[in-house]
């Protein structure tokens, strides 16, 4: 059941990330083409920047599911089990706490921004673009929760997964 949920959640995030990557590449390319034709699209860089922020938070949830965020597991891994488990719980608690806080303040800000609009597209409320913060935070929490049983099992066994395998192409 948990595995099925995890697979479904991973597919969903992968589709969102792919759509955002295509949108980013297409939007910037269209912007360049229009500019070479002498027509500058006023919304081009503002929308591209927003797409990057969306990619950041939806992608960050997918990265959390794949345990790809940069971390240093060496020290905890080397500790005896009675120290290892509490430290893993503290670390997990901090991650959950940070994203819960972000989801909460993200929602508060959305209300505040209800009357704020994009500069280049005055019909679009900043509330929608900013929605990525609470949504991204909740998705991150779900991803972290789906990994939790495995994280605790690994902590008990002393095989904490290296977190930064997937990130390294950005090096």
């Amino acid at each position, binding site marked *: 059941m948990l595995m099925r949920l995890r697979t479904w959640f991973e597919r969903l995030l992968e589709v969102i990330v792919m759509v955002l*990557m295509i949108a980013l590449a297409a939007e910037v390319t269209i912007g360049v083409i229009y500019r070479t034709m002498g027509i500058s699209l006023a919304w081009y860089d503002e929308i591209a920047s927003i797409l990057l922020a969306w990619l950041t938070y939806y*992608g960050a949830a997918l990265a959390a599911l794949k345990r790809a965020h*940069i971390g240093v597991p060496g020290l*905890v891994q080397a500790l005896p089990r009675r120290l290892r488990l509490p430290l893993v719980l503290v*670390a997990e608690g901090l991650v959950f706490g940070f994203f819960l806080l972000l989801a909460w303040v993200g929602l508060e800000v959305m209300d505040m921004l209800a009357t704020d609009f994009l500069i280049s597209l005055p019909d679009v409320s900043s509330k929608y673009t900013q929605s990525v913060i609470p949504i991204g935070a909740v998705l991150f929490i779900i991803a972290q929760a789906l990994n939790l049983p495995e994280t605790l099992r690994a902590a008990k066994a002393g095989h904490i997964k290296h977190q930064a395998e997937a990130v390294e192409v*950005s*090096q």
Partner: protein
Amino acid sequence: MTILLLFGCVLALVLINVPIAVALGVVAVVAIVVSHGVDSLPNVALTMFNGATNFPLLAIPLFILAGAIMNASGISRRLIAFASAVLGFIRGGLAMVSIGSSMFFAEISGSAVADVAALGSILIPAMKKKGYPKAFAAAVMSSAATLAVIIPPSIPMILYAVMADVSVVQMFVAGIVPGILGGLGLMGMAYWFARRHHYPIEEVFRLARVWATFKDASWAFMLPLIILGSIFTGIVTATEGAALAVVAALFIGLVVYRELDWKHLKEAMIEGGVQTAVVMLLVATSSLLGVYLTEVQLPQQLAASVSDYTSNKYVVLLLLNILFLMLGMFLHSAAAIILVVPVVLPLALSVGIDPVHFGLIVTINLGIGQQTPPVASVLMVACTIAKADIWEVTKTNIYFIGVLLAVLLMVTYVPITGMGLVEYFYR
């Protein structure tokens, strides 16, 4: 004192395996609440959003994507064939080919790990088959891959340019000469090994073969060259050039070579998206800490306190080189740039170091850091492919690291090495 406390807290959290991005965020939130109270918390959401909406950083996912598509389109094979035709006649031909292909691949890819994964998976087994020791094969491929972050485009350079608020284009141009020098130096070292251990030559030099392989690979390196040229001449920005690189990569993969399939494209997009998100989340949470650091002017305080001891530019450069070499041993380059550059940049500026020059020094340092255990992302990939022990490989790699260190010293103390082209074209 405050700076020590802040970094001490971040370090403590990182050591208990809190992801670095979250560790930065947690410490920043606590610092903000302590200094401004709970009412300032909504600013956390705003800063986290604004921190991720940085237009120049768009070049990162686009260059990662372009490199991945090019690789999935069979260009590695073609670049290797061309490098073999040009360099294969020299003793230790395959090692030369590895370095030469890495230099070509570097103009497509901005990532050393992508470089070693793409080329190493073909060249390391080929070297082993020809009787090269696996430690040598892994070392030469690993150190050559570092050229990918020095020769433009370069993801660490984009990141540095944004953190230090300097021109991405100038950073790219500054990397050209040191990248070529690094490549030639590594070839010299590989040749020395080859003479000493009687490694074979690869193939006889034939102009017809050079022409045939050039024709086959021409799309793969001419198109990126044209795009880099457009960036350097200011026709497009680095971000726009990166988007054009994606279009060019798709054109090459789908129309010219017709080897790119949907499965590879899908994997490339997901990988690119995840890697971007990991770096960007770090950028976003560090902007949270950045707000606090700026308010209390900590980087300026650090600059002032170091300046009390010395204002000699060369001593400061030496200290910064040591700092970044040490950091490179323990931190991934993206994390090191995001965490440390904003803190030490005012110090570098205060003693008259050009920020582009400093960026080049940081990039080469962190490139070397990818070769030095315990945290050595590029070396790890090479060792995994070669099925070689990381310490065994390091015994050989130390010679190649020596070459990269020589380039670093030259770039540091003979600034014209990297800055000559920048001064000539842009200032």
